């Protein structure tokens, strides 16, 4: 059994469905990529797994036996989906409006326990200890008025019970491990005194402080320039190899995926459209969206002034997955069959969600 098994994860903000039935798994010691363009639900997926999304109230309401919905006689997760798909069925005036909370359903099984079913207190004990996260923007993710040493020891104190000089010592050795020179002096510095790459190293040091078994990196290199990107990726790779930590890598950069990941899940409009080992995916992309993504990467051997090949349209013009392939409006090879019901996930080792895969390939 995999370390993290996400099954049929759904996240809805009010009537907008951000993640629509995502399933994937992360094995121990493996690097798994979650790839897709902005708004496809990759960050929301990671936040849902970490239990960091603000709680919505819709879920509660949907689970309560409602006379109209009861006729559909669906289990609770289905009811949430139905509510999302048919907004008019839910009385808009019923109850207080939620403050942009998220309704999460499905399962995220981590080492035998469903994280989504844990109480907030139990989840808090696990966060930072069993699973930790590295965020996108290293400057805003560090508290500007607290020295970085304090920010590291805070976690050590909480999860490992280290205090005072011992905690400081451990913090310094953590900084040393992520490649920050002169760590003892750095402990007293504030985030604004460090460079972007250093800050990201500090964030990584904080994340790995308690040797988590799963590390989630949400676009860890987006805010950095290219040389620093390479260093940070190398560092993450080393840490994973040394500790046997599993890494869930969220990115929109296929270059990062090719260099880092063992397995890749391509997300489109809140669903996995293709899932394969990394070599397999780059060698034989099957879903037209993956093909399009790979085709839009600039290549060095193309003649000068040759325009890049974009995927037309934007992620905004979507069909609901229930009615057909959400990518259909942007697909060059769209046919009748594409908008004729929900496209299933085909295959296991190299799975894809395209009904015309044989014809396309």
């Amino acid at each position: 059994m995999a370390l993290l098994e996400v099954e049929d994860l759904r996240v809805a903000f009010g009537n907008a469905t951000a993640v629509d039935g995502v399933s994937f798994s992360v094995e121990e010691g493996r690097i798994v990529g979650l790839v897709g363009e902005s708004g496809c639900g990759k960050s929301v997926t990671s936040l849902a797994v970490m239990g960091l999304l603000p709680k919505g109230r819709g879920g509660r309401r949907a689970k309560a036996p409602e006379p109209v919905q009861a006729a559909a006689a669906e289990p609770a997760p289905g009811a949430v989906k139905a509510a999302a798909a048919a907004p008019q069925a839910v009385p808009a005036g019923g109850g207080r409006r939620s403050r942009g909370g998220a309704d999460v359903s499905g399962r995220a099984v981590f080492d035998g326990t469903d994280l989504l079913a844990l109480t907030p207190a139990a989840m808090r004990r696990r966060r930072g200890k069993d699973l930790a996260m590295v965020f996108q923007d290293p400057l805003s993710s560090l508290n500007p008025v607290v020295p970085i040493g304090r920010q590291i020891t805070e976690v050590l104190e909480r999860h490992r019970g280290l205090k005072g000089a011992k905690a400081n010592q451990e913090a310094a050795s953590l900084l040393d491990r992520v490649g920050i020179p002169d760590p003892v002096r750095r402990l007293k510095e504030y985030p604004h005194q460090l460079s972007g790459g250093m800050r990201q190293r500090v964030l990584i040091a904080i994340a790995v402080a308690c040797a988590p078994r799963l590390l989630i990196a949400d676009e860890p290199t987006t805010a950095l320039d290219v040389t620093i990107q390479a260093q940070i990726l190398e560092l993450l790779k080393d840490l994973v190899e040394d500790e046997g930590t599993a890494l869930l890598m969220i990115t929109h950069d296929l270059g990062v995926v090719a260099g880092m990941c063992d397995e890749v899940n391509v997300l489109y409009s809140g669903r996995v459209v293709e899932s394969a080992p990394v070599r397999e995916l780059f060698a034989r992309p099957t879903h037209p969206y993956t093909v399009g993504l790979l085709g839009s990467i600039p290549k060095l051997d193309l003649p000068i002034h040759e325009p890049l090949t974009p995927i037309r349209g934007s992620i905004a013009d979507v069909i609901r997955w229930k009615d057909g392939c959400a990518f259909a409006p942007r697909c060059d090879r769209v046919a009748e069959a594409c908008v004729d019901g929900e496209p299933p996930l085909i295959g296991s080792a190299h799975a894809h969600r395209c009904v015309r895969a044989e014809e396309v390939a």
Partner: protein
Amino acid sequence: MTTARIEKLDRLIEASVSAREAQTGSLLRQSFRRLKRSPMAVTGAVIVGLFVVVAVLGPVIAPYDPTAQTWGKEVFLNRNIFPGPRAENWFGLDHLGRDMFSRMIVGARQTLLVGVVATLIGFVAGAVIGGVAAAAGTFGGRWGERVEAVIMRAVDVALAIPMLLLALSVAALLGPSLSTVMIAVGVAQIPIFARLLRGSMLAQAHSDYVLAAVSLGVPKGRIVVSHILPNSLGPVIVQATLVLATAIIEAAALSYLGLGNPDPGSPEWGTMLADAQRFLSGAPQLAIYPAVGIIVTALGFTLLGEAMRESLDPRLRRQE
């Protein structure tokens, strides 16, 4: 042409060097360095500094006893004769023949005391109310949100009452005295501080580093106290300097309306202003001294507060 270009280059280098220097040290030190370069801040600081020195040393540096009616026989109320500035009495005499200069100096102490204590009352009570509301609303779940809503609606109601009216009601309730003025002015400031701190904390509560702290399993109370609060206090501290100016003016207003210290001998700028009103046509200078004192002091605190706000504001920081 070339010399102009070299000069320009020099200036650029200088700017980059000073910018690098400015990046060392803590945020507070940086802000302080910027503050020293601002003429507004320096002017404000000089006025405030002078005022504080006068207020603290008051009775020591005053040339005469402010309550002694030493020159009472030289003042003729019915003939509008008030000896003006002269060598022994720099600001002249008031209607009872007391030395105005000494009264102004000694009166500064009460003005400062009232301003500081009233601001502290508002700051502490407002910060507690606003902080509790923000913490409850952010981390308290459904119940917390209700608590926050109740607190903040109460604050809104208090905000809707004109500040002077609120202060007047409190003063009327407690009877005229010096502590009444402090409490009244302080209570009137509570809703402002509460709202400000809550807003500031809510903004911080949605920041990335709070999410990062949550993702590391840091407990809620800890996040509020050691992450959100220190980042939210900046605007509140700045507001405190601005409120200090308002508090001084309001305290003077309450004294002017007769709700201040009832002891007629004890000099206070607001009371002095009220006394001078009766002789405004004959001796306008008696009103001008305390009025100018109040205005200049309030201006000093306002200048300092505004400059502090600018130097601490990260949005304005980049423009340098």
